[in-house]
């Protein structure tokens, strides 16, 4: 898709699948922000808008039994890994029908049936856990791959380092996916990070590291494909850095004053969903009718899921005390 670089084009099915995922993320985000500003629902919300192509590319490649670990800014990863919208949105809204009965919330979505194993709110802490999942798969002799998503800011925390080293010495089937959106909360990448690119840190672990345009689903697809294939075939871990941008700042309600307006405008003008749609159309991969059909179906599914979530009750008071231990209920 990056016009200057000649590259292979995935098959139509894959292109369509990625468009479905990009669309699902893009439209869900739109709906969510409207829902929250209208006051019809309350949620802690870290918009992933701008980063949708990364999840879509990985989502098109991963199997349901592959493991995914992600973080508070995780809606795009959840959707791309196949977490069902109804349960997912219900979890965001704290309803008993949610993936975690409303007890985890957006920062802690878990859905083992679709391979979404952990969502953490602690920067960088998913990486060591991803190693464990990968180790389990390796010990069991399956060819399951584990991917773990994290931000550029997370590349400066201790857990990142410990995890990449261990993954390398143990040759684990894991893909470390750094979604570099140029900010950690309100702090610019350069202020916090001594490496020009996060991917260059892979060399410290003698692990392949690659930087890719994360707003280009096709480029990201091939980088993801290489990393996933390497992990699946016993070739060990890879660090993939996908360059991207957050359209809506850190958290819903962010004043975004620390983001230069020109920078943000440039990113939004190059909306990756729009670019991808245009490219698919221009190059004849999908017709306007096909694209519109995907969009309509997606929107219908989202609206259904939001209605489901809004109609669902909160967890009952007893839920406060369950799931603390494997025994059913603990005394208060």
């Amino acid at each position: 898709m990056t016009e200057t670089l000649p590259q292979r084009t995935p098959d139509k099915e894959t292109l369509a699948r990625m468009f479905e995922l990009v669309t699902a993320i893009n439209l869900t985000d739109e709906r969510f922000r409207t829902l929250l500003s209208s006051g019809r629902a309350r949620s802690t919300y870290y918009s992933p808008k701008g980063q949708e192509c990364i999840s879509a590319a990985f989502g098109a490649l991963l199997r349901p039994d592959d493991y995914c670990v992600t973080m508070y800014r995780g809606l795009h990863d959840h959707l791309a890994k196949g977490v069902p919208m109804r349960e997912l949105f219900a979890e965001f809204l704290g309803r008993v029908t949610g993936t975690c009965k409303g007890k985890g919330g957006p920062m802690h979505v878990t859905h083992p049936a679709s391979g979404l194993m952990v969502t953490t709110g602690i920067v960088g802490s998913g990486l060591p856990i991803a190693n464990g999942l990968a180790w389990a798969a390796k010990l069991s002799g399956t060819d399951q791959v584990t991917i773990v998503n994290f931000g550029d800011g997370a590349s400066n925390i201790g857990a990142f380092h410990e995890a990449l080293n261990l993954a390398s010495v143990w040759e684990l089937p894991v893909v470390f996916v750094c979604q570099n959106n140029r900010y950690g909360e309100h702090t610019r990448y350069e202020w916090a990070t001594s490496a020009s690119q996060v991917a260059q840190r892979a060399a410290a672990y003698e692990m392949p590291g690659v930087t890719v345009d994360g707003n280009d689903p096709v480029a990201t697809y091939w980088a993801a494909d290489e990393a996933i294939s390497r992990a699946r075939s016993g070739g060990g871990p890879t660090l993939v850095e996908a360059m991207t941008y957050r359209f809506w700042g850190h958290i819903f309600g962010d004043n975004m004053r620390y983001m230069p307006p020109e920078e943000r405008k440039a990113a939004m003008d190059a909306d990756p969903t729009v670019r991808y749609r245009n490219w698919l159309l221009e190059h004849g991969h999908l017709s306007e009718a096909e694209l519109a059909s995907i969009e309509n179906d997606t929107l219908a599914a989202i609206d259904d899921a939001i209605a489901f979530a809004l109609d669902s009750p909160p967890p009952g008071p007893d839920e406060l005390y369950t799931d603390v231990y494997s025994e059913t209920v603990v005394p208060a």
Partner: protein
Amino acid sequence: MTDEVKVAKMTTAQAIHDALDLALAKDPKVLLFGEDVSDPSGGGVFHISEGLSTKYGEHRVRSTPISEQAIVGAAIGAAIGGYRPIAEIMFMDFFAVAMDQISNHAAKLRYMSGGQTGVPITIRTAAGAGMQFGAQHSEMLEAWVTHIPGLKVVVASNPADCKGLLTAAIFDDDPVVVIEPTLDYWVSGPVPEGEHVVPIGKASTARPGSDVTLITYGREVKFALEAAETLAGEGISVEVLDLRTLVPMDERAVLESVARTRRAVVVHQAVRRGGLGAEISALIHENLFGELEGPVVRVAGPNTPIPYAAELESLFVVDSADMVKGVRKAVQQTR
């Protein structure tokens, strides 16, 4: 407060800003750093330090990478090197990634060096549930830090004390953990202008009373006052003691009050098992056993992680109704 002191209405966030501003102005050795604290990165995630890096320079008010061990470690080193650093750890749950620097180093270096290297740092942190931030951004972990010899720990219940205790912490020669109840940042109240110090180690009587002493700290003081008001209507006179400093605790104030009322209720948001309430309960029983009408009642969080759903979270959080129940229970007990 004397008549000369001017008082302004401020939010807790503003009161903290004020304390930081005055400390930075007063002593060039005072430094402030943590994630996002400088102006190019928005002046702190709660905008508390907005303007300070512009005023005092980015060498003194500095944004850091997301590296809590590096943050606390740098504070310790700079303190040993002669400075008074204030390190900000955004949420208290994140102490978990920096406990080694906090416990094994900040707290112990004075002792291990035989008194040579004191560590006059302040660690500011937001804590407490009620914002639907879930299990990893809502904990009150005062029980961890009050169990570590070498640390001092303070928690304010109102904007004025927030300013005064923070100021005391910054100029204290020991490492002080300043726990700031997150939800209180937007609560306002009267705050003395200019330098304002609330001494470390002194509790305050938030409301005098004679039937029962309700001992608490931080955000729960407000609810305790509400509970006391409700109970006054039932003819129960509640004395509310605001600890303000958890270590070193004002044991005298606690014991003096309970010796008078002969009944005590201890309240905190943190989970009950192993919470600071147990220490206070043990302390009171050890000292006043024969004078009590009944056992100290603890009102605290349930022994569960903090749930996300608003309905469950509000059940988790101790409120004035829970305190009312606790006080009634204490009052029903008679020897």
